């Protein structure tokens, strides 16, 4: 790994973290493009992003448990049931052309951006004094 890659990786990771903390979005949506920018393929970026998500989720769980919001049983049911879906997703992702998966991810980002913008503008109309 070159010094440039390390510098770029640390910068993108920091930026992704700050933005996800600031705007309350999960890290994955920012990790994937950061890893793509570092030269990973789309499937490697997705797989590696999941690795980076695990510790972030663990910190989130610790915080939410302290706030008293956590309900263990439904979390475990949803999580364990997701494993079947995860295997289906892995099969689709590894069997699909990378550029098609990359475009699909691009569309997902645009959809999330649209949803955030819509939510922000709707709240502003409803509570204009709060802005």
């Amino acid at each position, binding site marked *: 790994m070159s010094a440039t890659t*390390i510098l770029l*990786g*640390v910068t993108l*990771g*920091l930026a*992704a*973290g700050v*933005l996800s*903390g*600031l*705007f309350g979005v*999960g*890290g994955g*949506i920012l990790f*994937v*493009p950061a*890893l793509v920018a*570092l030269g*990973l393929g789309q*499937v490697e*970026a997705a*797989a*590696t*992003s*999941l690795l*980076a*998500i*695990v510790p*972030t*989720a663990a*910190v989130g*769980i610790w915080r*939410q448990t302290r706030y008293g919001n*956590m309900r263990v049983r*439904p*979390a475990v*049911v*949803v*999580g*364990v*049931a*997701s*494993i079947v*879906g*995860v*295997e289906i*997703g892995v099969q689709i*992702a590894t069997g699909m052309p990378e550029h098609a998966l*990359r475009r699909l*991810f*691009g569309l997902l*980002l*645009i959809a*999330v*951006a*649209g949803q*955030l913008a819509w939510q*922000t*503008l709707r709240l502003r109309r409803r509570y204009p004094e709060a*802005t």
Partner: protein
Amino acid sequence: MRLVLIGLVAGVFSSLFGVGGGIVIVPLLIMVAGFAAKEASAVSLGAIAITALAGVVLYALHGKVDVEHGALVGVPAMVGALAGASLQRRLSGPAFMLAFACLLAGIGVWLLVG
């Protein structure tokens, strides 16, 4: 049963895109399973830890997990997330949110055409 279906959908979404799946789990828990928003976020995080871990293991079997790059981006991201969360009170508001939405859309367009 509803929770099982939510898990299935979230699992496909998560591994296909490399995201935690909170964007689908939270609204589904609220709309389909009748959770309060706060609880939905907490339960979603709990589920995501299992989902993401399963994704890492199953992708690793295909040799797709790049541990070096994962640490390179993931470790600074944890530091950044703590800083971001504490900056939230000073840097929130609709203008910031809309700027962030534009940034996301810009990255989306880059991935679409790049």
